[in-house]
């Protein structure tokens, strides 16, 4: 028997014995599987994640072929999935058992892995009630891909409401309670007035003396959520301010307009970085008018004299079989991605804690873009920048229409994070 034939038969036997994906009874010669390619053959990369997610929601099973054809999905060729793919415009390729065995053989022999996707995670997006759905990249990605989520805010977080969610995304919130430090520069702007009123009202109703105090309580609850096994994903300024709020134990890091007392001039020295998730040793911005928090951000977009130009960032290659988590998070059909600004655009290398996994960096620059780490039973992932397809996003800009960017590699990284909690847990070596 030739080796190839042997491998094929042996693999077929293994597949037959494995209680893997439920399959429809074969009708005629119809292929029982659909491969959802995620390389350049895919016509809508972002909606492909929604296809997989909805299949899991229906109780179906899927597999994520890490590093195989850009991170392809294997789904059963049932009527609902086929219809869903047709409506969403997601490219699928019929796959019969023989070809599937070949694919599995290919995966076995390369830096690839097949990860079963078992259960749709329950997704929460932390956002104020009046937040425009089009001002947050994750909300846009979830809406576009057709992934269900619930919006929660401070009352739910402080009231232990996070327990019922597997995955939490933080809208670009300022957890230092300083209204993104726009308070002075945009004084009188209706949106800012509304934001201030809403936050002050919430702090009062929850019994906190100020918005910074209340936001710190929210940050602590989010930290505990991760400790207990939650999956946290944050972008833009939520990354930096969450860690600043966690580390500011007994230190006033908020300007007088936010809590009535000026920022402690020695705040930098008083920070307790062991409480933060990702960063350490940062120097805090003391000016109440400068919409910059610290030197964690490498790009300092709102500081005219320190602002750095945009370049591009490169995703790292990880070993799929040894580091499946990191591999899942960097699945993409593009390895080099144009950078984009946010209130926090990137993370200074010098401010990262030693255990942080860097998922993407700008080669040669003193900052990184995309990081991941663990805390207790859970994990967190931070992605710098505001909107991957609007590199210079400004307040009041037109919303990004993702139907014009169905192949966005930046948005894919967000959706990798959404599906990552659906993966069957196994011993993670990252």
């Amino acid at each position: 028997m030739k080796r190839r034939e042997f491998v094929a038969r042996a693999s077929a036997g293994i597949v037959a014995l494995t209680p893997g994906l439920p399959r429809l009874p074969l009708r005629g010669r119809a292929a029982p599987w659909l491969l959802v390619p995620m390389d350049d053959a895919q016509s809508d990369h972002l909606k492909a994640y929604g296809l997989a997610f909805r299949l899991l929601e229906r109780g179906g099973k899927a597999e994520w072929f890490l590093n195989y054809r850009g991170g392809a999905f294997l789904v059963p060729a049932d009527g609902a999935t086929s219809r869903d793919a047709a409506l969403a415009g997601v490219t699928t390729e019929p796959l019969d058992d023989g070809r599937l065995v070949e694919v599995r053989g290919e995966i076995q022999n390369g830096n690839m892995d097949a990860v079963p996707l078992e259960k749709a995670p329950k997704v929460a997006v932390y956002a104020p009630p009046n937040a425009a759905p089009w001002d947050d990249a994750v909300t846009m990605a979830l809406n576009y891909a057709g992934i269900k989520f619930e919006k929660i805010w401070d009352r739910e977080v402080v009231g232990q409401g996070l327990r019922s969610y597997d995955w939490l995304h933080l809208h670009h919130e300022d957890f230092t309670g300083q209204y993104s430090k726009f308070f002075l520069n945009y004084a009188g702007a209706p949106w800012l007035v509304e934001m201030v009123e809403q936050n002050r009202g919430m702090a009062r109703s929850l019994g906190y003396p100020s918005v910074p105090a209340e936001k710190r309580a929210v940050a602590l609850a989010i930290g505990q959520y991760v400790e207990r096994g939650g999956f946290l994903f944050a972008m833009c300024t939520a990354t930096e301010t969450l860690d600043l709020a966690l580390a500011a134990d007994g230190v006033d890091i908020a300007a007088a307009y936010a809590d009535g007392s000026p920022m402690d001039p020695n705040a930098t020295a008083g920070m307790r970085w062991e409480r933060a998730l990702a960063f350490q040793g940062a120097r805090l911005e003391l000016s109440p008018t400068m919409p910059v928090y610290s030197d964690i951000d490498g790009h300092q977009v709102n500081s005219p004299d320190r602002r750095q130009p945009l370049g591009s960032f490169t995703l790292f290659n990880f070993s799929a079989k040894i580091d499946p988590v990191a591999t899942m998070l960097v699945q993409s059909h593009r390895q080099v991605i144009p950078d984009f600004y946010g209130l926090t655009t990137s993370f200074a290398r010098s401010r990262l804690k030693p255990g942080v996994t860097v998922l993407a960096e700008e080669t040669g620059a003193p900052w990184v873009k995309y990081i991941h780490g663990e805390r207790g039973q859970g994990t967190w992932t931070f992605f710098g920048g505001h909107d991957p397809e609007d590199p210079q996003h400004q307040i009041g800009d037109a919303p990004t229409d993702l139907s014009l960017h169905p192949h966005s590699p930046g948005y894919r990284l967000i959706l990798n994070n959404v599906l990552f909690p659906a993966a069957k847990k196994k011993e993670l070596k990252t």
Partner: protein
Amino acid sequence: MSSFRLVRIPLVLLSLCTMPRAAAAQQATMPRAFELERRGNYDAAAEAYRGILSGKPGDVSALLGLERVLLPLNRSVEIVPDVRAALAANPSSAALYGVALRAWGASDQPDSMRAVAERWARIAPRDEAPYREWGAAALAGRDREGALQAYRLGRERLGRGDVLAAEMAQLAISDGDYASAAREWLPAVRRLPGYRVTAVATLGHAPVSKRPEILRTLSAEPDFTARRLESELRVKWGDPLGGLAALESGLPQARGQGVEALRGLVEQLRMQRTRDGLVAQGRALEAIAARLPEGQAARTRLEAAQAYSAAGDREAARRMLSGLADDRSAPSVVASGAATALLTVLIGEGKLSEASRRLTELRPQLSGEEHAELLRALVTAYIRLGELDRADSVLGRDSTIEGFALAGRIRLYRGDLDGAVESFKQAGPYAGDRADATRRTVLLALLQPIEADTLQLLGAALLRLEQGDTTRAVAELETVAGDLPAANGGAELRLLAGRLAAAKGDPALAERLYREAASKEAPATAPAAELALAELMLAARRTSEAVTQLEHLILTYPESALVPQARRALDMARGAVPQT
């Protein structure tokens, strides 16, 4: 071994021991350091610059180079010893004091910064630079108060109110204090007019609520600098006529200065294609023309006429053009431009006989191409009036692609479908602009399935559409469609009639026509009709019906070219993408 050899060995060893230092000194040249810096090898570049400084501690270029490369390495603080040595070696170099201020700023030593600035100020007592650099270094260290102190001290020492005004203005902007910023910008611009652009750019970002205060601050000042700033800000904030009025109220008597200011305003207004923007542009150009010698004014008057014409103010346009088109002394380019503009105005006003007569009269002033374009504009106007024979006669035997496109329209409206198709095909995709080409393609698609060579009723219906009588056009199109099989034009005509009904605000009629057009007997038309029907439902907020309709379209006609559009509409219906 000879004694010579024994002596040589220690010499060789000695030379080997001293070589690194000598080699370093030899290699530590500015070109090499620059090259290392250019390549991004900052560590090596820092060493190279230090090598130069070890020999010449006061070398300004090397110290500046070292400062540059230490910054990306996040090691700016390390420059302090080099700066000390440089200042000791070259205590009169202003550039070194600048580096020193930044170095002590980076190492967070405000007292040292002040001391260095004071030292520098003693060397250059009438210079603002020590205070400016001190303030900048303080700002780099996020010390706003330190910067303010530096600027105030500079102003006090130099004894003038306009000292460091631009810096104070920027500081006020960063505090959100726009009125103070405006007050500071004024002396800064008076002293150095080049600051005007920055002043307008920074003040221009003021929130709406702050703008009246800024304008009040500026209007309280009597001079032309204030008027000009006010004018440019008003234009930037969407009040072009107010901007023009502000500028005109303070225009200096000096002709050159006035013209320069008006031209600046015109340049700013060119970005604003609103009616007010165009009127303001026309008036500013008219004002410029009034200030120019007669020989030079013609071109500007022409530009003013074009701006007025684009704004729809034909009276003003004609006023500008009067005499210009017939002026034999005007430059030929101006005369032909004026003739073109005048004829365009006449055609726009529907004075076709006068336009025709003037076109003949002005023929010598026009190039062949200009004449042909105006002729076609005249033909188009006759077509719109329904005077097809006159249009045909004016068009004559125009064998250009634009001519064929017009001939196609004349034939179509006469009901000669075969002739229209032939002419449109001859016109091809390049006649007119993209919209014209698309319109012809749509008409070809409409006519293609119809088997009849002539259909006068259809021509009449389409002419009514051209003339803007949509209601009668819809009724007549439906009548014609009733006589045609669905697959042979019936469905297409109903779809067109449905679109027109929707556009004129009759959704019930549009829905009926779309449903009739979405016939399985006309599979080429049905997807478009279904999509149009879904869009109609979406507009009426009948979202779930629209979703069902779109899903039906995508699943029934998966190969249709309209499927991507249907998916986008589906996304919008489901709230997956923003409503645009």
